[in-house]
């Protein structure tokens, strides 16, 4: 058994009512109240659907979180990942006591401080120093604690010169720096951090991530970190949980969790099932493989697209494969074809196409398959036949953690 469990979440659920709060509200409230005084259960707790935002539901009530249970050990850095609307923010809000759960409980052995936003309660008319005190107190520090750390906080923020100037004169970057400095000197046992790192430049991100590493490594404190940014989750966390439609779908080592999250099926790729066959050909398999990793595709791996197909009746004709590659938005980015390189032969063909390393940005890609006859006519077309995910490599601390724009990253020659 490793370190002691500091935070225990048991069957945590949160129900929300959809739609607007209007005239229906009062009748539901009355109904609730009536069943309460008759000693019955809340009638609206029994209904409710899982929170899949894309599907239109029948019920007005949804479960933003449904029976979440997990444990966190002391000193652990736990990442929480999930799509928009998976329940990450709701979980954080409950953890930081901004809102209460509908059922279930959270048990904690330590003080929780949450950083859902930096600079909460900053007042533009007050000076930097006054705001440090106010913001610190809002985050749960006493005046004495802040007073003792004031010099360090100001130093860390790098705003020494402006500290007696009203915050409204600060640049937005300075505001964030000052606010993060206050938060960095909080000394809770458990720190809950939302995507506050999304703002700021690389230097600030380095500082912020470095500080959080310190908090867990040196201070032995526990951090719960929520982010969409897989690169920073990977650099910071040991373990991660994946939330999907309000439930924990995976609780595992960070690498496994991230590739699961990105690719769902063990993180790699999906081949649209179905029979791809007609009178001239039969497609057996189609996959993207990495030279270095078995179960994932990392951006700096050598990747190979392998197509295995049988041609039944070639005769005098020539056959080629063409692929269209599109991004997760469904936009076709380019097409590539075997036509200038090789002709398919009668019987089984194993065709390999090599992508150079660092060609793709991390992300999700779709392939559409075309079988071309005599360089003129597509005899078979299947849209989005396969999907694959490219994940970030581990980056150095201090380098840019965000996603680079665009989808491909050609390796041009520089001099």
């Amino acid at each position, binding site marked *: 058994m490793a370190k002691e469990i500091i935070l225990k979440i048991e069957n945590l659920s949160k129900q929300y009512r959809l739609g607007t*709060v209007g005239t229906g509200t009062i009748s539901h409230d009355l109904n609730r109240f009536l069943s309460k005084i008759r000693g019955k259960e809340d009638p609206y707790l029994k209904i409710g659907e899982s929170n899949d935002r894309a599907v239109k539901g029948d019920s007005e009530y949804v479960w933003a979180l449904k029976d979440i249970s997990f444990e966190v050990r002391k000193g652990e850095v736990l990442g929480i990942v999930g799509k928009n609307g998976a329940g990450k923010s709701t979980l954080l809000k409950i953890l930081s006591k*901004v*809102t209460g759960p509908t059922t279930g409980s959270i048990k*904690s052995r330590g003080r929780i401080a949450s950083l*859902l*936003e930096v600079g*909460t309660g900053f*007042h533009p008319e007050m000076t930097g120093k*006054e705001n440090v005190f106010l913001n610190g107190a809002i985050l749960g520090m*006493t005046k004495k604690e802040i007073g003792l750390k004031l010099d360090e906080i100001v130093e860390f923020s790098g705003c020494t010169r402006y500290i007696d100037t009203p915050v409204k004169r600060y640049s937005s970057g300075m505001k964030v720096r000052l606010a993060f400095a206050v938060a960095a000197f909080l000394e809770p046992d458990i720190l809950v951090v939302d995507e506050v790192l999304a703002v700021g430049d690389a230097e600030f991100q380095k500082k912020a991530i470095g500080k959080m590493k310190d908090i867990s490594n040196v201070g032995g404190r526990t951090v719960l970190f929520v982010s969409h940014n897989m690169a920073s989750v990977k650099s910071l966390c040991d373990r991660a949980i994946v939330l999907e439609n309000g439930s924990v779908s995976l609780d595992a080592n960070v690498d496994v969790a991230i590739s699961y999250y990105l690719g769902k099926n063990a993180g790699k790729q999906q081949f649209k099932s179905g029979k791809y066959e007609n009178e001239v050909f039969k497609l057996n398999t189609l996959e993207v493989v990495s030279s270095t990793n078995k179960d994932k595709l990392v951006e700096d791996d050598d990747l190979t697209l392998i197509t295995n197909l049988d041609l039944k009746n070639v005769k005098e004709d020539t056959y080629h494969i063409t692929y269209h590659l599109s991004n997760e938005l469904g936009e076709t980015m380019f097409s590539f074809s075997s036509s200038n390189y090789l002709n398919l032969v009668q019987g089984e063909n194993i065709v390999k196409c090599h992508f150079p390393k660092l060609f793709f940005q991390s992300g999700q890609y779709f392939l559409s398959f075309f079988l071309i006859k005599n360089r003129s006519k597509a005899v078979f077309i299947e849209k989005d036949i396969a999907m694959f995910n490219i994940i970030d490599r581990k980056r150095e601390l201090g380098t840019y953690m965000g996603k680079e724009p665009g989808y491909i990253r050609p390796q041009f020659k520089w001099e």
Partner: protein
Amino acid sequence: MKEDKWLFEITPKNNLLDFNFKEIWSYRDLLFLFVKRDVITLYKQTILGPLWYLIQPLFTSIIFTLVFNTIAGIETGSIPPFLFNLAGVTIWNYFKECLTATSDTFKKNEAIFGKVYFPRVIMPISIVISNLLKFGIQIFIFICFYAYYYFNGYNITPNKYILFFPVLIIAMGMIGLGLGMIISSMVTKYRDLTFLVAFGVQLLMYLSAVMYPLDLMRDKLSDGYGGADYSWIVDYNPIAHLIEFGRFILLNDGNYSAFGIMYTSVFTLFVFFLGLLIFNKTEKTFIDTI
């Protein structure tokens, strides 16, 4: 495993009387800093800023004197009508400020409340305390006029009950805070109340003996329209009692009844604790409904 040694637990709140006074006390520095923020920013707005707190009661009192005393002919005995009205307006203003400022606590602080936890009740309490500053400015003006009239030969002296003045102000604050907390809790779901507060407070002033003696109003109401007795309107209005009592101790004029004091004390405590109760129940989940 040490399963039982948890520092705290977050569960759905069901217990109505689940107050954590220890926690509120541990956030006293925050209370102080909120008050400080309000005080600082009050002055930082403009140079004329604090002056508005003088102009408003002065002009209100002048208009009241004109309408109620000069035109309607309400008698205020040996007390100069202007001073009479100023006393009423000053005390009333503290109540009004407390009520209106606390009644949108949740709505106004949604941004902070949605991001970080601290005992929410700190916010309305800080408002009531920082309103004391505005009240202080207004009472200062009142004292100036008091002195002016005194040295011009008017027979005005404070009553020996003047020692109870702070109690009176605390009671005013508690009623304002209590009602404000109740309203702010309900506003999170039903916005209708915002409109009610806006004009309800205005109307309440006319029923609260601000610009006339309580006795006079009671007399007139007891054989009111159609011979019916409407005197309950003032008899059961704690604000009217408080204002009348305030004038009694400041100007030694008017009356107070044991019933009035008893009733008002009970009402104050009731409203205050009811407010705390409702506020406490709302604070855990208001962010979902607001």
